């Protein structure tokens, strides 16, 4: 398996405060690596280092073998889909237009965009006829996040970043969307980096789990082996399962 994303001795600090210290790990093509950690552990910051929204203070993050410093910032972001907890749909655009934003920026012909929007809405379980013309405010939280996922997938980026995407949803909707995520992953060959503070979610969606504790990499294990992890921080998380 080839490496899609590599953290090489990455540190990030802001205002004299260290958020991340000496992160060293890689994400293989096609896997879903979950970044698990408590609030303030630096996991969202780690995501933003991947798509170039933040630059490491020292060390480097490589995407497809190239440092994020060498990537054209726009090109890098277009290769990477990004889904956040607060969704961030554009409230002045219909569902269809929201999903079409990046294809339009990429200059796709209108026919191809229309096909792609229909296909994506179908794949996230929102029938086009019913949902394409609606505005974000006319959707439930779960439906909005489905659109958020469809939007991130719009130009078929090889890498996806998820920042606690289902954190604000009720537990039933959350499980529903986790299943949808797993189904999508089966169908598409994507490399995903998935941030969560929920150990159950981590075990469900991850192929591997990296536990961040106070800005450091505490444990990195296959999801199937994570329950045997022995560090203090890992055991605290595992205790939540009982």
């Amino acid at each position: 398996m080839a490496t899609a994303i590599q953290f090489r001795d990455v540190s990030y600090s802001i205002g004299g405060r260290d958020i991340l210290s000496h992160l060293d790990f890689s994400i293989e093509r096609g896997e879903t690596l979950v970044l698990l950690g408590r609030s303030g552990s630096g996991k969202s910051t780690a995501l933003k280092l991947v798509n170039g929204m933040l630059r490491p203070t020292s060390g480097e993050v490589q995407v497809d073998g190239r440092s994020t410093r060498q990537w054209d910032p726009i090109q890098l972001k277009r290769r990477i889909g990004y889904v956040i907890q607060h969704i961030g749909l554009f409230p002045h655009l219909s569902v269809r237009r929201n999903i079409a934003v990046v294809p339009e920026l990429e200059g796709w012909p209108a026919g191809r965009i229309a096909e792609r929007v229909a296909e994506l809405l179908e794949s996230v379980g929102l029938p086009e006829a019913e949902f394409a013309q609606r505005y974000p405010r006319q959707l439930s939280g779960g439906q909005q996040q489905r659109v958020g996922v469809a939007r991130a997938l719009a130009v078929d980026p090889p890498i996806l970043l998820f920042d606690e995407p289902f954190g604000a949803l009720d537990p039933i909707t959350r499980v529903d969307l986790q299943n949808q995520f797993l189904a999508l992953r089966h169908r598409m060959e994507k490399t995903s980096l998935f941030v969560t503070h929920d150990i159950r979610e981590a075990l469900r969606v991850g192929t591997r789990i990296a536990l961040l504790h106070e800005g450091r990499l505490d444990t990195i294990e296959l999801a199937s082996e994570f329950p045997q992890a022995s560090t203090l921080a890992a055991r605290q998380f595992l205790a939540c399962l009982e």
Partner: protein
Amino acid sequence: MRSDLLADLLQHTWEHLLLVGLSVTVSILAGIPAGIACARHATLRRWLLGFASVMQTIPSLALFGFLIPVPWIGGIGTRTVVVALVLYALLPILRNTVVGLDGIDPAVRESAVAMGMTDSQMLRQVLLPLAAPTILAGIRLATVATIGTATIAAAIGGGGLGVFIFRGVGTVDSAQILAGAIPAAILALVADGGLAWIERRLSPL
């Protein structure tokens, strides 16, 4: 006599509209870009909003008086009036542009950045459409206020509906005052209603 008065009225109303239209247009052309810049730079924001606020506190007659001796922009007549009216109209437009941009959900900005939008794409496709109703409310405020303030233009030979009012005040003639005041009030109401309608049409939510 009657047709004379009507012609007079139409001419001064037209002058009034020109004064207001020109001043508000200049304020929009200066105020919106300045507001966009202020939304990004905290220092610039402090200075520009401070400047525009100070301008608002100067009584209009005094501002006209101050401007008359200023070279290039001063003197007697339309130019001085337009400069003064622009200085007044700037604050609501500038401030509402800043407020409108500030009020945008940070998650919306974050997704726009993460999608790989350039600054100008983000401004045109996301920020300005979302701030538009607030900016338009500022333009509406500025327009209505300028229609009123422009009546003072006549004091320094700028023409407009104020001509009737000053003439009426000078000759203690209420009919003359009303001949200026009523059309000015109607203009203000029409502008307010029209701009409110556009505001509703533009509102994305």
